[in-house]
């Protein structure tokens, strides 16, 4: 087991090096950040001076090396616009994004799993057909559109038309509390209210995927002999579905959810923009539009680390959930 982990960690490190090179190469092509920072009628000398001060005049490979050197120390340079170290900016905004993604995953699982299992149990029922059609809509409608519609309905139309209907906040983050040094709004009532609409927006896509996956897996599992045997033993239907079917479904669901976590952080870019949520995603978009290169680079590196770690965790989770995998590797 230990050998396995070490091997995966080394693979992960290799992937990160390759990715960093790709990221760097890609970012190098992003416009001319200097042009954003000085007035258009600055002289060339002034331009060169700024360029030199940012280290942009050195040859490409030198820039990459100094970049990697700094990166290993966690230093991605200072944001061109904010002056703060890029990585620090990102860390400041990370909790907001993470709590958003986390809540959306919880919502997606809590609603998506039962619906998917139900659709798998009674595939020909009206409810099941409705759920499946809904799931198609869920993953095909663009994220920002969903956010927009939710705002329209819950922050504009319903409160306007129905007196006394609460107006859900459509932008910004709510009150935060300090948890272990990190500011989280998940644990305040006001924070939750602000989290609700954006989390729902993010949750729709994931929920739709979970519904479809749960249904497909349930359809595979339910005709299996061991389910029939469980019924032959006289177990209640609740136990058959709630324990026997569910435990088998959890394996693919857990792996997909883990991987989706990473995807969601990417999708959060859109949701955060729609709801003016002060997370990493909004920071990224602003940085891209304003060509704030250090921040973009730092963000991409964080994403790469995220993905790699997530992949590793998902693999480990898989071996925890599926006893066949776990024990076989121990036996060999």
């Amino acid at each position, binding site marked *: 087991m230990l050998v396995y982990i070490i091997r995966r960690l080394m693979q992960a490190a290799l992937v990160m090096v390759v990715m960093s090179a790709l990221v760097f190469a890609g970012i190098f092509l992003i416009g001319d950040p200097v042009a954003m920072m000085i007035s258009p009628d600055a002289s060339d000398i002034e331009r060169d001076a700024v360029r030199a001060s940012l280290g942009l005049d050195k040859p490409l490979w030198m820039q990459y090396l100094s970049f990697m050197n700094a990166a290993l120390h966690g230093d991605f340079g200072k944001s061109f616009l904010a002056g703060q170290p890029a990585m620090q900016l990102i860390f400041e905004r990370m909790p907001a994004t993470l709590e958003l993604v986390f809540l959306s995953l919880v919502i997606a699982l809590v609603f998506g799993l039962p619906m998917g299992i139900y659709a798998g149990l009674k595939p020909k029922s009206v409810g099941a057909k409705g759920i499946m059609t809904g799931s198609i809509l869920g993953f095909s409608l663009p994220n920002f559109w969903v956010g927009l519609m939710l705002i329209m309905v819950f922050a504009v139309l319903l409160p306007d038309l129905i007196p006394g209907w609460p107006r859900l906040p459509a932008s910004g983050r709510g009150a935060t509390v300090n948890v272990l040094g990190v500011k989280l709004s998940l644990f305040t009532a006001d924070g939750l209210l602000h989290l609700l609409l954006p989390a729902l927006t993010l949750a729709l896509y994931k929920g739709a995927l979970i519904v479809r996956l749960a249904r497909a897996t349930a359809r595979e599992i339910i005709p299996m002999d061991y389910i029939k045997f469980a019924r*032959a033993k006289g177990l209640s239907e609740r136990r058959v579905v709630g324990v026997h079917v569910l435990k*088998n479904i959890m394996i693919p669901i857990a792996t997909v959810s883990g991987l989706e976590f990473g995807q969601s952080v990417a999708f959060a870019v859109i949701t955060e923009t729609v709801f003016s949520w002060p997370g990493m995603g909004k920071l990224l978009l602003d940085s891209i539009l304003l060509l704030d290169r250090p921040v973009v680079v730092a963000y991409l590196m964080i994403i790469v680390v995220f993905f790699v770690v997530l992949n590793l965790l998902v693999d480990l989770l898989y071996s925890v959930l599926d006893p066949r995998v776990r024990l076989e590797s121990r036996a060999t």
Partner: protein
Amino acid sequence: MTPTLSVSNLRTHFFTKEGVARAVDGVDFDVAPGEILGLVGESGSGKTVTGFSILGLIDPPGRIVEGSSIKLGDEELTTAKPDRLRAIRGAEIAMIFQDPMMTLNPVLRVDTQMIETVQAHLKVSRADALARSRAALVQVGIASPDERLRAYPHQFSGGMRQRVAIAIALLHKPKLIVADEPTTALDVTIQGQILFEAQRLCRESNTSMIWVTHDLAVVAGLADRIAVMYAGRIVEMGRTADVIERPMHPYTKGLIGSVPSQNTRGHRLAQIPGMTPSLLKLPAGCSFKSRCPIAVEQCNTMPDLVEHRPGHWARCWRAAA
């Protein structure tokens, strides 16, 4: 004495898009307490569906057709409420499936799967249920039961898994056990052990058993009575010795004749020509007619199951021949 199980005119049909498959089409038999009945037939004969019908485990598009009767003692099962059926399953009637690999849920531990069976029918504590499970494992001859209980199914060999399945079946001392080809997937030596265990347990606890199989040889040494099924109906039924030594139906004769044994060494193995008919397109009259060496004009009408000799029934116009 009331028989443990009394099946009369059982018809289980599957209503599919391509037509109605008459998997079981008029089956009658009784099983006495402590008796082992061997239900023999090829694939497609309806023997497995009969077993599932008794337990009420037929899934749509199949269902037991009106006019069928399955009685456990004096209680009619075809009209029983779902809750009553669930209470009976696993407690008064237990089932053992064919493939032990797929019968136990691979992601749950053995003790979980045994304890839940106990607690589904009895209000006992987990500790008590565990003790019962342990005792059941000992009863089927599994050494070091505590270790086995904490293990997962895939860590067992096939024979061991099947013993666990038998142990689960015995947890509530059922009146009837339906065993659906339980040794087909096992080695011959293990098969012998399981057969021996099964016979011993039935004798000891006076449990009735229906042993479903396609292998006449297996059931010849085990069962008290044999019922031979073909295309959804019983074609011959009687005491084992009678059926094996003095078969009346041409199909049974064919089956016995096709078992390789020392007597036929060097000779060509006898076969029954042709194939079982599709359950969707059963011919009119006797279903065996197209493969029968002694079929005549009269066979265009379906014969009834007639007691041609005492305790020995056959569904053939020419059985007394």
